[in-house]
């Protein structure tokens, strides 16, 4: 069990499991744990070091099993205007027409791996290999909220305006992040996503 864990800081440790191989809700409710940061293959558990310790959190986390019932996760159909500033250059790079890029991107089934980087930014699995594209050589100073981008074999939507280096192929007008909602982000780890050309 020990090797599932890595020291991160004096108030945090990594559990090296994919988020769908454990129970995030149960991890978050370990006594003394104050925050969790799931990613592709790990979950950072942040705790109050005055209330608990690495050993205690580790013991509690090791005992947590993934949920028994595998209820199907919500499917979000997100309308996209495929009109991003990098659509044409990305299509040329792959020797595809912009229309074919849109077809391929909208035909795929995506899964939310985790949220990170900035509030509400969902990293999606499932991008067709033919569309995998490196980040821009130099990031844009501002990417508008709602922009749909590709970086490597990932795709995702910027929920808020931020600097960013993903190649932008479209945008959506739906609200992905609202701090007054519970949860704040429309997309949650494990959710399924389809993009619908608008």
């Amino acid at each position, binding site marked *: 069990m020990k090797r599932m864990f*890595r*020291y*991160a*800081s*004096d*108030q*945090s440790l*990594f559990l090296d499991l994919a988020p769908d191989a454990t129970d*995030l809700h149960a991890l*978050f409710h370990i006594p003394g744990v*104050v*925050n*969790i*940061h*799931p*990613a*592709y*293959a*790990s*979950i*950072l558990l*942040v705790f109050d*070091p*005055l209330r608990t*310790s*690495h050993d205690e959190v580790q013991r509690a986390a090791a005992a947590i099993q993934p949920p028994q019932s595998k209820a199907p996760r919500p499917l979000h159909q997100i309308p996209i205007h495929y009109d991003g500033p990098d659509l044409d250059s990305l299509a040329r790079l792959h020797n595809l027409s912009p229309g074919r890029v849109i077809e391929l991107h909208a035909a795929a089934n995506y899964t939310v791996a*985790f*949220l*990170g*980087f*900035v*509030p*509400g*930014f969902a*990293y999606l699995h499932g991008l067709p290999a033919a569309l995998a594209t490196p980040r821009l050589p130099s990031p844009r100073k501002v990417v508008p909220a709602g922009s749909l981008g590709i970086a490597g074999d990932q795709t995702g939507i910027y929920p*808020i305006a*931020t600097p960013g280096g993903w190649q932008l192929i479209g945008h959506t007008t739906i609200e992905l*992040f609202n*701090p*007054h909602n519970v*949860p*704040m*982000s429309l997309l*949650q*780890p494990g959710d399924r996503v389809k993009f619908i050309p608008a």
Partner: protein
Amino acid sequence: MKIVIDNPGMFTTVQDLGRPGHGIDGVSRSGAADPLALRIANRLLGNNENTPALEMTLLGGTFTFPQGATIALTGGRLPALPMYRPFEILPGQTIRTGTLETGARSYLAVRGGIPAKLVAGSASTHVLSGLGGRPLRKGDVLPIGPSASAPKTNPVPNSLTTYNTTLRVTAGPQSSSFPANTFYHAEYLVSPDSNRMGLRLDGPAILSPNPGQMVTEGVPLGAIQLPPNGQPILLFVDQQTTGGYPKIANVITADIPSIGQLRPGDRVRFQLVSNAEAQRLLRRQQSLIETL
């Protein structure tokens, strides 16, 4: 009762101790850049430690209190004003905090607190996302809440009002990929391109002899990331929640407040300590806070 912002200063926000618990939505904790100074200010006023107050950055502001107030100033030293003790502001009185003489952030807390609107349980301002509002502007008026508790006159221990430029760290999860000796003997300058999200440090490049791709993972507060150019980035309170750069070290919890007092151009060094030592230093700091 209220505070009128005649001049907000360079960059003044409302902060409490942040909104932990939303990492799963990609939301960082935020909160005071120097949580120690905020907690002390609130304790001196008989407030709960987590009560929202004003965080001023490098250049303080001008504030008028039409009905008066009891306030406390903590953190970076402000010229000609009493620090680290509660004092009375008379009705209609204006205070000018001026330019910070030391450090990077000062806190103005009021007895009764600033009952700002809570977003996910916190009044903290996360500037990039707009969570919790925006930096203050001239003409803003903030309410002051009621208080039943009396201010305290306990002296604040010196070790709680002094800050380190040698930050103590524990080894980071990818520390073995880097030449640790170079890092721990180096001195870095805090770049002007630093803010509540992170501090860029200029100095000797720390390069990995075997640079490989790392899978993106969560990043703890105070993580020291090394991008390919080898210039460290220290992740701070409004940090991104995940990252793909390796982390050589992590500032210990007891020294997080010192990060909040670093200003552009300051020289900073890192000292490696054990996890046990980090925990001991944090408990000692906590027991001193509890004397207030």
